[in-house]
């Protein structure tokens, strides 16, 4: 596995190029172009805010901000896994015709989603300031949370991208799982008091990450490091599992595609 990491580092230029191409190519030809990167989450925010403020009153103060700081990281996580799982299949032409460490593909995909999220964070910061919440010292914890989430998303994207090569249904199954997963994570609403729901939400490794974003940006306090360590452990586990499974499965990619 060490050899693979070394090789991937050698191919960093390819990753950078793929990320650039992806970011530039994503909204190519559309009128708003790169602006869609911001328009998309803003509209999602608008819809959820309307729904949870006027239809189902959540009773949370400044709900739009409360939601916004959690929704953007969630979109990153969700799109990394759903899109990342098809990243090998999508680059069939490259995989069947030329050699490069296959890990490059999911890494590039997840990284491009990550960069996309970081860009959207500019808007989050602006919103936080406009809302009068202010930026607190706890902001120095933000990169740590980003990295934990990145590792978790990458590990899962790796794992499922390799599976999807052999089993195409995985792509759709992942779409459904991620749709359900958002309701097991305190993104749209607070952790409920019901015991079962609370237990599930506590086991869910995404919960501490989402709560950490909210602690840092909404409440302006330091997140619970114990809970974050739990997520980090889970993320690292999936990261190594993903790389290991990928390494085993990648040998026959070219034949399967």
């Amino acid at each position: 596995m060490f050899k693979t990491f070394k090789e991937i580092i050698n191919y960093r230029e390819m990753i950078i190029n793929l990320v650039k191409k992806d970011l530039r190519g994503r909204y190519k030809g559309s009128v708003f172009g790169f602006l869609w990167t911001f328009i998309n989450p803003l509209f999602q925010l608008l819809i959820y805010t309307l729904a949870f403020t006027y239809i189902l009153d959540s009773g949370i103060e400044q709900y739009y901000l409360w939601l916004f700081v959690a929704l953007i990281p969630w979109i990153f996580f969700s799109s990394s896994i759903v899109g990342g799982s098809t990243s090998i299949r999508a680059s069939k032409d490259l995989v069947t015709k030329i050699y490069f460490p296959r890990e490059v593909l999911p890494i590039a995909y997840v990284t491009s989603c990550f960069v996309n999220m970081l860009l959207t964070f500019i808007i989050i910061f602006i919103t936080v300031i406009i809302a009068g919440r202010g930026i607190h010292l706890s902001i120095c914890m933000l990169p740590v949370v980003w990295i934990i989430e990145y590792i978790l998303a990458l590990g899962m994207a790796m794992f499922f991208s390799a599976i999807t090569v052999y089993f195409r249904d995985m792509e759709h199954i992942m779409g459904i799982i991620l749709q359900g997963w958002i309701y097991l994570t305190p993104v749209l609403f607070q952790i409920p008091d019901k015991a079962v729901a609370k237990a599930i939400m506590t086991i869910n490794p995404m919960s501490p990450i989402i709560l950490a974003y909210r602690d840092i940006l909404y409440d302006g306090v330091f997140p619970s490091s114990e809970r974050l360590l739990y997520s980090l452990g889970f993320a690292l586990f999936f990261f190594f599992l993903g790389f290991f499974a990928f390494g085993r499965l990648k040998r026959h990619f070219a034949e399967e595609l």
Partner: protein
Amino acid sequence: MDNSNNAIEVKNIKKKFKIFIDKGSELKERILFKERKQYEEREVLKGISFDVKKGEAIGLIGHNGCGKSTTLKLLTRIYYPDEGTIEMDGRVSSLIELGAGFHPDMSGRENIYTNASIFGLSHKEIDERLEDIIEFSELEDFIDNPVRTYSSGMYMRLAFSVAINVDADILLIDEILAVGDANFQRKCFDRLRELKRKGTTIVIVSHSLGQIEQICDTTYWIEDGLIKESGIPRFVHERYMYEMERKRILQVEKEQLRRQQRRRAEAEKKEEEEARKEAKKSERQKAKEEAKRQKEEEERQKAIAENPEIVDNFKKEIPFFCEQDAIRVGTGEAEFTDVKLTDKDGNEKYIFDTDEDIYLRIKYKAHKEGLKGVLGFGVFRQDGLHCYGTNTAIESNQPIDLQKSGEAVIRIKNNLLPAYYYLDTALHGIDGVKYDDIVRTKTFMTASFLHDIGISRIKSTFTVDGKTYKMGEQEHGEQ
């Protein structure tokens, strides 16, 4: 690596592919058709081993589907072997898929970065090579235009320039030296040779044997997933070419034999049917027909007697044993009923080695009693050159007493050099009246491993400075 001088060590690699009849990678199909075997396994490589020294260039040859491209794909690590090991020392660049990841909307310069990054180069390394790449591609004036505006030649030139400037230790090439115009090809070639001089190890898969001979030190001839032969390219290629030609003409012969068999069967069926019809007819009917035929025959003989120059086409239909474009003339008093070309054991064939005897087996019928005749044949090359002709009168001056139904075998000592030939057959009366004269009764080919030239082999023996150099005893170099 067993030997540090080796750049590539391939040990006994085997590779099977699943050929899916109906590939189902969806859940429903997997579950529903779990029991059904949807694929066959085909063993493409059955155990190939070879070493390539650092700075050596090797060529892989073989007919389509022999496994040479699979071998190359295993070397590039697109596929992995089922069994055996491949070890390689150094950076590998492949000129298999040129222009991987090219984006039509991006400029030539941007695409150089994308494409080179796929070979594992860092930004700095690409910066260092950028000038060389652009210069080599001769696209200085177009390098900032989008690639979609390039001609296909320009596109390939750019792609090739990137691949060849990676500075790999091992270069894998699949049939790419057909890039751009003659000038550019020359340049690619010179660059490859320069790289080789500098110590780059090169593996080429190609159908162009000439190109391999120019660059490679060793050729591996792969057949049916195994190495059939290896050695100095020129000598291996000579035998490979011979084998290929042989295979090709054997295929032609097989088709011709099949066609001949079908036509023979049809003719036999027709004859049987006529015999059956004949048997059904009453005595009176038979007598009537016989009288009619005799009358016709007499009239015809009279016409020929009056004007001997007229030799009519007695049968418009070309008989089954002839080539389709045969021309048949004659009085029909005697006629060929079958003509075969065979080897000495009587097996019908159409391709003979130079120096292999041809047996011409003929069956004939004479419709008159006491008819005397002359039997002959002629050989023409496809371009019309009359190679040889003889008949029984020339050979012995004794006429043949033609039987009601007879047979002849002519053994022809064949010295003809490789080409297509036509064989004519003729059955004449002693006075020169054509009974049955067929032009292009048969076609045949000759094949030879030697490269002597001309029409026919005139056996020669060279003795130079006391040493005798005999034909067919060539040095083939190391095996």
